């Protein structure tokens, strides 16, 4: 931190603050060691990288192989636009609504059953009283929406009740829901499917999908064509690798030629995990050595995609806690490298576990600042957790939810539907 002394650009009061921090550390720490030594061994410096498990369980392959194939084909028009028109589709939620209601409602419904009628007592009352507000507040807090967003929502509603704009508990609940839906619809949730990707899909449709590293196409790929890169980022254990696998499956099923980049070189066996997904999705994969430089894996993947004609590179990254500065720096580097032509980063998706509480906002803020996140993937929404933190994230950071993970099956990754999501909150 002294450091900042060298970083002359920093403002002076920060410098003063930092100047204090150092001696504090030195005195506290130094003295501590001097005195409280209990004979523990001296260990080496902290290596960058991490060990915490990023451990989403996923599909039983056999169980769902057949079902998956059909299910994926069913939803493919929604799931992965294979043409320009579909790519420009503005409202993925609506499409999802009409094309796969069973999945979305069904999955969420299972969890919702446990708290069914949470707002029953609100609705059953003849008029709005103080317990009504308490109940609404509790429902929102329990869904992890957070104190700030909850207060903002309810204060607004209080004003509208006072001015008689809203009459009766039923109308109040409906108003709350529609407020939430519009709050969640402010940003464009469409995924970036570049035209080139659709074209690529068409080009190579007849080639079939060669699994493994040997792409025998021998096609005439246009080197000037940019390679779209999707980057998946997030803290440990949210389901990044699984999400990459599912997205690959969707794209692949829709005829897009996908290349996976196993950018998690840190977690033991993360590369193996992604390889299994690659073979499931009929996608190619580029892997590095364990402990290797993730940026170089992504770089290699982009190069390979350019020469072999893959339209999209899906880059997995190691889970990293957002307060680990050097790991966030590493991620910035990955993004820079991925954005080097012919690569072009079109999506940076922050994968967020639905069980995450208020810390999710801090995560989103740091990742947004560091790598310009374009959207959120909310995973594990098939449990009892509601994932309400995405409301706070969209409200404060304007970051839309783009995809939702509803289960362990390959097909259980769908476009975000604000209506269904809000329904499930209560």
């Amino acid at each position, binding site marked *: 931190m002294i*450091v900042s002394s060298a970083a002359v650009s920093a403002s002076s009061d920060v410098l003063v603050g930092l*100047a204090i921090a150092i001696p504090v550390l030195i005195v506290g720490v130094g003295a501590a*060691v001097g005195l409280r030594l209990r004979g523990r061994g001296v260990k080496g410096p902290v290596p960058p990288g991490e060990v915490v498990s990023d451990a989403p369980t996923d599909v039983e392959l056999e169980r769902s192989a057949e079902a998956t194939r059909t299910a994926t084909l069913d939803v493919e028009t929604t799931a992965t636009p294979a043409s320009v028109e579909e790519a420009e589709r503005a409202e993925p939620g609506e499409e999802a609504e009409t094309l796969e209601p069973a999945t979305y409602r069904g999955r969420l419904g299972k969890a919702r059953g446990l708290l069914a009628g949470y707002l029953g007592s609100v609705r059953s009352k003849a008029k709005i009283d103080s317990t009504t507000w308490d109940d609404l507040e509790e429902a929102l807090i329990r869904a992890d929406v957070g104190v700030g967003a909850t207060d903002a929502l309810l204060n607004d509603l209080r004003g509208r009740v006072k001015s008689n704009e809203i009459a009766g508990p039923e109308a109040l609940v409906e108003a709350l829901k529609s407020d939430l839906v519009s709050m969640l619809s402010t940003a464009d949730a469409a995924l970036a499917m570049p035209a080139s990707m659709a074209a690529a899909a068409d080009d190579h449709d007849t080639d079939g999908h060669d699994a493994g590293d040997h792409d025998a196409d021998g096609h005439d790929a246009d080197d000037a064509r940019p390679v779209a890169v999707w980057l998946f980022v997030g803290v440990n254990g949210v389901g990044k690798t699984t999400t990459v696998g599912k997205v690959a499956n969707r794209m692949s099923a829709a005829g897009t030629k996908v290349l996976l980049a196993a950018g998690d070189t840190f977690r033991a066996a993360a590369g*193996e995990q992604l390889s299994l997904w690659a073979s499931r999705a009929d996608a190619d994969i580029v892997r590095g050595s364990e402990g290797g430089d993730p940026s170089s894996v992504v770089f290699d993947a982009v190069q390979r995609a350019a020469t072999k004609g893959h339209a999209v590179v899906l880059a997995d990254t190691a889970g990293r806690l957002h307060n680990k*500065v050097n790991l966030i720096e590493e991620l910035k580097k990955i993004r820079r490298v991925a954005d080097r032509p012919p690569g072009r980063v079109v999506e940076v998706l922050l994968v967020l576990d639905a069980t995450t509480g208020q810390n999710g906002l801090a995560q989103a803020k740091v990742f947004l600042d560091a790598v310009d996140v374009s959207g959120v993937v909310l995973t594990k929404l098939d*449990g009892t957790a509601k994932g309400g933190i995405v409301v706070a994230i969209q409200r404060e950071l304007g970051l839309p939810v783009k995809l939702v993970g509803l289960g362990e099956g390959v097909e259980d990754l769908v476009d975000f539907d604000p209506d269904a999501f809000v329904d499930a909150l209560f």
Partner: protein
Amino acid sequence: MFESLTDRFEGILTRLRNRGRLTEADIDEVLREIRTALLEADVEIGVVRSFTQAVRERCVGLELSQNLSPGQQVIKIVNDELVAILGGETLKISYAGRPPTVILLAGLQGSGKTTASAKLARWFKQQGRNPLLVGADLQRPAAVEQLRVLGQQAGITVFSEPSDPVAVATAGLEEAKRLGRDVLIVDTAGRLGIDEALMGEIRHIAGAVNPHYTFLVIDAMTGQDAVATAAAFDEALSLDGVILTKLDGDARGGAALSVKEVVGKPIAFASTGEKLDDFDQFHPDRMADRILGMGDVLSLIEQAERTMDRDVATKGAAAIIEGRFTLEDFLEQLQQVKKMGSMSGMLSLLPGVPKDVKQASSAIDDRQIGQVEAIIRSMTPGERVNPAIIDGARRVRIANGSGTATSDVNALLKQFKEMQKMMKGMGKGGMSGALGGMFGRGPKMSPQAMAEMAELSEMGAGGGELPAFAGTGGGPGALGAGPMASPGAGGGGGRRSSKGKGKGGGRKGKGGGRVTPKAR
């Protein structure tokens, strides 16, 4: 991002400082702040409700002591209650009379079971035990492979086979007996509490191996759902405790409090870092401080113990206190501190450091630290001891030598001068005085932390050379937190008497730190 409870109290505190007694309205206001702070720390809303009720009861009619401000007293009450809920003691593992002692790990997907299994095995090994790991997560692709790699790093044998989880666990138990292992740790697949089929499966696993301890692995970042999850697993498996993971993040970890209160099972272990060694038994009192946003000096100290060179550190501390801290010492200390990990991470553990400083420090990366080192290394020994001799020509030489600009060199020198000045202040007036002056803020540090720091500095100086520091005693102007804990723990001598002990008050035994193994 989150204001700590102490931050929140600041405004209220200034108004209450001179009151003899808290009014009903004061208490309401304070409780609202407590409520918000707890909710932002992800404490379950039902727990928050009963908690604030308990605090209210203790606050009403509170006779205010002469030494403590009302706000300090309220914080003390809150802290006491938190510690009481979290449980006063760490869990003691009782080993089975007929080995192996079987431990089953369960949890949601991505909570960190596989890593926790390896870390737990490593912990047992360090206790002199001889563990065997069983990989019964056959769901997630490559989960067993991950466990094998971790096991190899930890020097622990891993057993698994591609059959079904129940069979693997059973065979693992036989294997442990055959190999004469005295601890068996079974890693399982992640599952949702509402997934009937998978919950049934893990019940079968438990039935097959008869675990002495069943631990639920919970991510410290978990929100309100932690309680529902814990309740579901407890119902299915009858948990013995919880392993809290990813505590090295900046989540407050209110989930820990909620689970303990609602399910009544203690937090047994906590995982606090990326390395296999970053795992230890859980200390409830420290968690209370964290939830309140009061930092965690003890954790910092332990981190330091693990990584720092004792002689170098002592030398540096002595140099500061004697007012002869040179750039040479600075360089040496910098390298020590660097070994401990990220600066911002360490700062986050320190109480009393303003938020803006913490934020600013997170912008610093190792490259910049390297730059500072390069500048100092480009100086002659004479220059390092006496920077005053560095004139224009020397500056240019140093800048050229370190590949920086002369403005960088100037900035560093200026900064170092300020630091020296402050250190002199610390040597004379005690760190609290220096810090209090610099930050210009009200009470910030927890008394316990103050006591710790006081004692540390005192001892670091070779004993008893920092009277002003140790005797802060609630004096205004200095850090002012004073002996908020029971007198003797925080104030006066400042000798290490507490690690939070004596704080739990009357309810201390309630939490039940000890868990006896179930009959097999």
